[in-house]
């Protein structure tokens, strides 16, 4: 019983690999929304969920442009760029938000490694920009202060 079950799994696995190999590369790279990473409330768990076991390291080649003091936490402009070659994805994490992962942009070669977006911040927080390239994750972090107010204009 035990043996045949294992064997069946093994055969299933072989069939699955065969099916994968038969598919064109573009379909192999088909993207799926990393929902678990978005749903995670923990910074580390979210990163782990997004990148698996890839090594994650700080890098000054990841350029994160974000305001020191956000005009408004509801609309914080963020620009992430890098000169690292072969970028697969660029992600934004707001460490102190209830769900830290904010956005995950998946790039192809046709696009320059520079993305601008606007995010919500519930409170002051480190903002982390993560770049996935060549089997590694590179990141840089910037502290963004969020204040509450109402007399601009």
């Amino acid at each position: 019983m035990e043996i045949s079950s294992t064997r069946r799994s093994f055969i299933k696995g072989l069939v699955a690999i065969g099916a994968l190999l038969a598919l064109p590369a573009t379909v192999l790279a088909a993207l799926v929304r990393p929902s678990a990473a978005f749903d995670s409330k923990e910074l580390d768990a979210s990163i782990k969920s997004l990148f698996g076991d890839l090594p994650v390291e700080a890098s000054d080649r990841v350029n994160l442009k974000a305001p020191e003091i956000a005009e408004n936490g509801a609309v914080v402009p963020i620009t992430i760029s890098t000169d690292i070659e072969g970028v697969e994805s660029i992600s934004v994490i707001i460490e102190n938000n209830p769900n830290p992962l904010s956005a995950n942009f998946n790039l192809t070669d046709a696009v320059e490694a520079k993305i601008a977006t606007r995010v919500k911040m519930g409170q002051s927080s480190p903002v982390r920009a993560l770049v996935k390239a060549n089997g590694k994750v590179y990141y840089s972090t910037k502290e963004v202060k969020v204040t509450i107010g109402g007399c601009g204009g």
Partner: protein
Amino acid sequence: MADKSVKIRGKVKDGVAGVKTLISHPMETGTRRNAETGELIPAHYIEEVVFSHNGNDILTAYWGTSVSKNPYSAFSIKSAAPGDTVAVRWTDNTGASGANEITLK
């Protein structure tokens, strides 16, 4: 294909197209309460946006609830020419979707 929910601007300079998009969407987090009734306003946010160039998908964005209301995105296409098309299509967590396309100048 034209859809008022998506505004796209694209400009070609030295063979590179700078593209900026603005999508009209509430991006509700699901944690806000209605000020009058006190009831939670259900989460309503864009989950996926696909940007394409001449019909090829070139950038796929996955978003959570913390992307700002009326989401803005900007990026550049490495090799583009006037007359090329740039399209955006989005879907949200309720299954709603929108799309628009422009011709680069």
